[in-house]
C-alpha cells in the first residue's frame, strides 16, 4: 500500500485533533494494529502541539504542515512549522525539559518511544521540521514449509 496525504492548517489548538485523526485514518489503510495507531496518534499530537506552543509561542496565525506517507514498510510523518525554531535540539529532546511549568517536557520522549525513528531539524528564526517513522510489525507463526 502506498499513499500520501498533506495537511496545512493554522496553529490553533483545535487542529491538533484534526492532524491526529487524519494521520490515524491514513495509518488505518496499512496493517497497523489499533494499539499501533493509538501510539502514532500520540506522537502526531505531540509534534503538532510543539509546533503550536513552541514554534509559534501560542500565536494562532502560523502555518503548520503535516505530511503522511504510506509505503510497504510503514508510515513516515513530517510535521513542519515556520516559527521561532529550536536553539538547542539536544536539550529540547531531554525528558522533563520544558519552558512551561504546566507541561511535562515529554513531547519528544513520547515521539521517540512510540515511533521507530525520529529526526528533528530546526533553524532559529525559520522553523522546525520533525520527521518520524513507524514500521508495520507483522506477527504470526511461520508455516511448516518456512520453518
Amino acid at each position: 500500500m502506498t499513499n500520501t496525504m498533506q495537511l496545512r492548517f493554522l496553529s490553533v489548538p483545535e487542529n491538533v485533533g484534526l492532524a491526529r485523526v487524519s494521520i490515524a485514518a491514513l495509518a488505518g489503510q496499512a496493517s497497523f494494529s489499533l494499539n499501533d495507531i493509538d501510539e502514532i496518534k500520540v506522537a502526531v499530537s505531540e509534534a503538532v502541539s510543539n509546533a503550536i506552543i513552541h514554534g509559534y509561542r501560542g500565536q494562532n496565525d502560523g502555518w503548520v504542515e503535516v505530511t503522511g506517507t504510506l509505503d510497504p514498510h510503514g508510515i513516515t510523518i513530517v510535521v513542519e512549522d515556520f516559527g521561532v525554531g529550536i536553539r538547542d535540539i539536544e536539550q529540547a529532546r531531554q525528558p522533563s525539559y520544558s519552558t512551561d511549568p504546566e507541561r511535562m517536557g515529554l513531547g519528544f520522549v513520547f515521539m521517540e518511544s512510540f515511533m521507530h525513528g525520529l529526526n528533528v531539524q530546526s533553524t532559529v528564526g525559520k522553523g522546525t521540521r520533525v520527521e518520524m517513522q513507524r514500521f508495520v510489525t507483522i506477527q504470526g507463526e511461520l508455516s511448516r514449509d518456512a520453518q
Partner: protein
Amino acid sequence: MTIVHTIQGSRILVAVNGDLDLTSAAPLRDALDELIDRYREKSLVLDLADVDFIDSSGLGVILGRFRRMSGRPLSLVGVRPAVKAVLELAGITSILPVADAVRPPVKDQRA
C-alpha cells in the same frame, strides 16, 4: 470535552468525557482548580472512563493538579488501556493510584 463533578462525602468525583490534549487542557485545568480551591478538604478522583486519548498536554494538567493539591489525595479511575500506556510511560502510575476501566460484562448469547 465535557466535565461533570459530583461531591461524594470527602471526595470530589470528576467525570471527564473527550480527548485530553492541547485543546482541552486549559478548560480542564481551570475547572479542576476551581473545584480544588472550593472544596479545600476533599480528595479528587478523576474518572477517565470516557477518555480515549491523552497526550503530554493532558498529563500536564493531571500532574499540575497533583502538585497544586500538595498532599491531598488524587486518584484516577476508569483508565482505558490506550490512556494507561501513556500514563505508564510518563511514570504517573508510580505516583498516583490508577484503576483500570471495568470491562462491560459479556452478554449471554443464549438470552
